């Protein structure tokens, strides 16, 4: 998965490093989102998490990912969606952002899409659960509309409470 991602990304990296052209798309409620495929490490089913004290409700806890302790964020809780169920279909996208590994629970993973520069429009000022600061643009492909998130910026932001810059101590 990541191999193909790397290969296809190389030319763009040389030209304009800021614009990834392959996105992993997932759904949260009614909306469809896309993240840079190069930030995605793997996709897993949701398994038992160990709860952590003093964490906001959307941080479900930590899991053991082949010996590494990885925190898991439920984006459905983060974005205050109506239902957040955990069953055998619940999936988790394991991300590699800011030299850290983070798990992200979403409603469903759709597919990998390629978008050219002209298919990406700047983000409007309103209209999604995600703060527009973290939206890099809106991708359109036939009838679908894709909200593209700068996942690295989002996960390292203070309101995700995932990193120590929040300075608890």
């Amino acid at each position, binding site marked *: 998965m990541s191999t193909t991602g790397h290969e296809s990304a190389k030319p763009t990296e040389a030209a304009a490093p800021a614009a990834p052209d392959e996105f992993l798309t997932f759904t949260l409620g009614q909306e469809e989102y896309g993240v840079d495929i190069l930030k995605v490490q793997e996709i897993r089913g949701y398994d038992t998490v*160990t709860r952590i004290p003093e964490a906001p409700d959307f941080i479900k806890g*930590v899991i053991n990912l082949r010996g590494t*302790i990885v925190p898991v964020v439920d984006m459905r809780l983060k974005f205050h969606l109506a239902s957040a169920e955990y069953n055998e279909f619940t999936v988790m996208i394991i991300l590699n952002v800011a030299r850290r590994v983070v798990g992200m629970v979403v409603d469903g993973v759709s597919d990998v899409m390629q978008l050219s520069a002209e298919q990406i429009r700047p983000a409007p000022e309103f209209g999604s659960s995600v703060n527009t600061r973290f939206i890099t643009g809106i991708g359109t492909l036939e009838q679908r509309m894709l909200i593209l998130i700068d996942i690295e910026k989002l996960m390292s932001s203070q309101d995700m*409470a995932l990193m120590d810059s929040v300075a608890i*101590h």
Partner: protein
Amino acid sequence: MSIDLAQFHRTFFEECFEGIDLMERDLLRMGGGPGGETVNAVFRAAHSIKGGAATFGFAAIASFTHHMETLLDQMRSGTRAISDPAVDLLLRATDALRSLLAAARDGEPLDTARVAGAQAALEAFLGAADAPESTAVAVPAVEQAYLIRFVPAPDLFRSGNDPLLILRELATLGTLETRLDLDTAPAFAECDAESCHMAWSLRLLSSHSRAELQEVFAWVEGSCELDIRLESAAAPPAAVATTGPAVHAVAAPTPRPGEHTVGDGGSIRVGTDKIDALMNLVGELIITQAMLAQLAGALDPVLNEKLLAGLSQLDRNTRLLQEAVMSTRMLPIDSVFSRFPRLVRDLAAKLGKQVRLTTVGESTELDKSVIEKISDPLNHLVRNSLDHGIESPEARSAAGKDAVGTVTLKAAHQGDNILVEVCDDGRGLDRARILAKAREQGIACTDAMSDAEVWQLIFAPGFSTADRVTDVSGRGVGMDVVKKNIAALGGSVELHSSAGRGSRTVIRLPLTLAILDGMSVGVSGEIFILPLSAVIESLQPQAEQVKRVVHQGTVVRVRNEYLPLVDLRQWFGLSGKSRPLHEAIAVIVESEGRKLALQVDELVGQQQVVIKSLEANYRRIRGVSGATILGDGRVSLILDVGAIVRLFSQAQAA
């Protein structure tokens, strides 16, 4: 062809710093006594630094070391007495050399004044005694023609050597004629660019001795065929062996036993990252093994006899493997202790005191990561002992003590801990003065406090009894930092003192930071790990033992002691309803002399756990020191008892 020498720089610097440490140690040992093997050892160290520096193109280091080498050479050949000023000078030079090396390695700004000063001093010292040197070393003024046959081994480049550098150095010794010999080279198509297929026949017109020529080749000894003979000599001398005895060893045929034979058992240099990777894998293996053991527990022991026998074998082997891997990370504490003779010598001179340093248990081994972190705290303690503990020689004589004070560094194993002690036979801690200072600085204290409690005041941030700030100690950033650093390693510090007889600081540290003996407890379905070292006992309190104190929470009475009771479920905000206390279990834990009872649902067991970082992908959590992976693959949090005790006593005080 060019080789990227940079990849060898790290090894070069490591070896140089080791060499300097060795030189320093031996110089201190020399201190006016007869030289013999010790001088030779220092000379050899200086020589290899010089050789290495020249090879890697650090001209400044090479030329600086050259002066040291000259002085040492005079000392070992006996043309110059081993005097205190000479040793002092050499010690100064080692400092300068160290900063030269550090500057070359890290690109740090160089302490030019120090280096220039040391170099000038060396030159002046050498110059003053130029006369004896010229008479002693009878220079054969006659030029002789040497025929040198130099056939490097094919793998010469791999050891970072470059024949060109050798030839250039030879050329500095006289008039050199070279003839490249390509007979041994394979056909072009079969040439391996990284192998050396060349050989040289050289003719050198030089006034230097053969031994000096041979020294040029010292770095490639063993990876070349070398034959140096005088042109006129008809009969070739028995071909100078490829791996002949080191040239310098001639002067010292009998090494004193036990001095330089350390580590002769053969060793290889391995990067710590490789050992860390190995350590991680062993950690994984332990987790897998625990998982298998857990699964096997449910099997019928009769039907699965063989499988169970195999598993118990695996259990034993895993443990042995873990110990073996851990032991590769273990270093003798000597690597820390050996820095102190120099420090004590310099400090004592500066303070006008006479101090003898003794070390006990230098061979005690502990984890490399612990070693690295213990050096600064020890430094503080030794400085404190010298500055505050040991009295001036006059005061000592007046008190009927030996004018020379003693500072002792001790290390010993005790169970899974290592004890490191710094003792002195000085004046001891001054109770009245500490109390007075504490009051002055607004630290809460009373006269009724026990000695042990008074000594704890020293660890308060900003505390200092020194009336004036010296550059040795007294800035008051000492003991609290010591305590914090030690606590961060999972250790503790104790102070003992008796007035007029001296004081003793005992540091207790865990052997390793990677694995912990833990007690697992269950709270509303979650498993938490408590460090076994912090657990005192666990009990099921009777209803009458538990008291609610208004605004203070709950206390539990255990053998006439009232301990605050912390409900872990509540504290961590876990779901479920707390059980009535008499159905729950209270685990009594202790940290920094304060006890606390933790209320849990059940005791699960005891096990060794591999400590994993939470901060790598998440952040710090109050009261949690890390995480581990249980036998069933689940993550379990390791509680930081010290932090919980501290937090709770703060909460209670507020």
